[in-house]
């Protein structure tokens, strides 16, 4: 009996260790980014890093460490991709959750999930060979490698995330909502518009937040398609270099332990904090939401 009890305890401890590993990994990521990244501020001022418009670390006499133009690139691609993916994704989610027959839903859902299976480097390649020449032709530009093309490619990547989470949110609404509004004589569109969407609003917002997190962190597609220019972008037809792409480009050539290496970790830290806040926000909303509607 005692032996059995120890076995039980031992098993629980083992499983607990596996569970806690996620926390340890997250902590370790933060600690490494922070300790290395913060070191760069011994030689770079905070003001220059966050508000400097020039990023030119390889300059011999006067290296510049401003991430403002990189940050602008990230913001533009994130905003642009959401502008495309949110309407399309939420419309798709409404169709799948409320309108499609269960049979067609069962076929459509795995197909849309498959988009998430396309590696981002492949989307980048398609953006490079197919989309950007098309964009250049349509708008009469010399090159189609710009923030617009990058936004479109990232939008494709966001679709499965936004669709599947929004659909979960809509289907988790209590059926009483549907029955009550239909019983009052509403059409199904009135029911969706006046009852379901207002009730699901915070959940849909959480889905969008998770989309923001993914768009901010997307690397390979923007690295290939966004055009890689360090100049401050003025419009969506300008090439940009988002923060993720900048890290991926420069980290290979950099001397380990140099200021440049540490500055790239500082950019990583900025990315980590941004995505962490966005994900935490989405998490809190979903948690509240689930508690509200679990009858």
């Amino acid at each position, binding site marked *: 009996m005692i032996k*059995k009890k120890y076995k039980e305890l031992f098993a629980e401890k083992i*499983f607990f260790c*596996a*569970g*806690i*590993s*996620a926390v340890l*990994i*997250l902590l*370790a*990521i933060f600690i*490494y*980014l922070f300790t*290395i990244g913060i070191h760069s501020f011994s030689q770079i001022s905070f003001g220059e890093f966050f508000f400097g418009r020039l990023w030119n670390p390889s300059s011999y006499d006067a290296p510049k460490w401003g991430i403002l133009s990189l940050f602008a690139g990230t913001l533009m691609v994130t905003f642009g991709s959401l502008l495309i993916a949110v309407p*399309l*994704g939420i*419309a*798709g989610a*409404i*169709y799948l959750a409320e*309108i*499609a027959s269960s049979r067609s839903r069962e076929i*459509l859902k795995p197909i*849309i999930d*498959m*988009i*998430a*299976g*396309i*590696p981002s*480097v492949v989307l*980048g*390649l*398609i953006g*490079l*060979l197919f989309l950007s020449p098309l964009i250049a032709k349509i708008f009469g530009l010399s090159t189609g490698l710009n923030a617009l093309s990058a936004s479109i490619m990232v939008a*494709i990547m966001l*679709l499965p995330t936004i669709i599947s989470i929004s659909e979960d949110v809509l289907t988790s609404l209590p059926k009483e909502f549907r029955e009550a509004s*239909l019983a009052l*004589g509403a*059409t*199904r*569109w009135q029911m969706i518009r006046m009852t379901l969407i207002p009730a699901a609003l915070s959940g849909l917002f959480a889905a969008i937040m*998770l989309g923001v*997190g*993914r768009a901010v*962190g997307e*690397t*390979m597609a923007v690295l*290939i398609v966004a055009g890689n220019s360090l100049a401050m972008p003025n419009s969506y037809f300008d090439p940009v270099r988002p923060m*993720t792409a900048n890290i*991926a480009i420069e*980290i*290979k050539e950099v001397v380990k332990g140099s200021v440049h290496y540490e500055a*790239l970790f500082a950019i*990583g830290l900025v990315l*980590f904090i941004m995505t*962490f806040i966005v*994900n*935490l926000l989405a998490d809190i909303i979903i948690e509240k939401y689930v508690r509200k509607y679990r009858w």
Partner: protein
Amino acid sequence: MKRRRNSRNIQDTSSEEIYLSETYNKELIKERIYFGIFKAATYISVMILVLILIYIISTGYKVISWQFLTSMWSHRDITKGGIFPAIFGTILLGIFVSIISIPMGIAAAIYLNEYAKDNLTNRIIKIAIRNLAGVPSVVYGLFGLAFFVLALKLGTSLLAASLTLACMTLPWIISASEEALKAVPQSFKDGSYALGATKWETIIKVVLPNSLSGMLTGSILGVSRAIGETAPIIIVGATFYMSYMPLSPLDKFMALPYHLFILATQHSSSYARDYALGTTLVLIAIVFILNLGVFIARYNLRKKKLW
């Protein structure tokens, strides 16, 4: 589903018999228009996937040949070589990542679903898992470089890349496994406890046999996503050209996603583009075969389920 169809019937009869006013008809027309838009939005997403696949297959098949798939990469004249080392590297990477992250992910999911009480520690674990899934891949790359490559002195190697990708895959595997565990009916566990089984015995003899296939299929999806990741392996270990196969986990390795990235963006050969598309086709084929396998396995499992 039945419920919805019923409610529609009620609505139809009410519209015919009681309330055939003009405003109601207008609403119905509006409904038809909006539903049409929503349907179109869904099919646009599907069409995007179809178009991408058609593009890759129609452009990539040209360079696919036995030689392309099975010979070593020839650096000087890319038409004389193949991408076998890259295929080999990617498959090896997938196996290593699976070995590291699947047992750990499944164990973590069992903890969360079977042991964890609703207290602060466990809530933090859940938040950490969801946040881990949101960390950008390039940040995993930075972490892998600082921790596995430099601090643990693994060097830029297959092992460092596998560990980095395993960290990234872990949250996906945990959430997929949790889903499978939640599908095991509570009555199964209650029955086991009623017979005097302990928790450990219940997990081994009742919970695992009924959820393992679901956990494995979910995990394979996670790994199939990981082997397509490029940003982390650029940083921690992939190389574009090697004259030998990786013999130990501490060797560098070639991988399909990195290979196609270099071919598409940095290679000077005039055939580079075609070869990039051919490499893409091979990568997509591996990822989709894994996905399709999971889809079929799940379909068969659902048919076999008795509850």
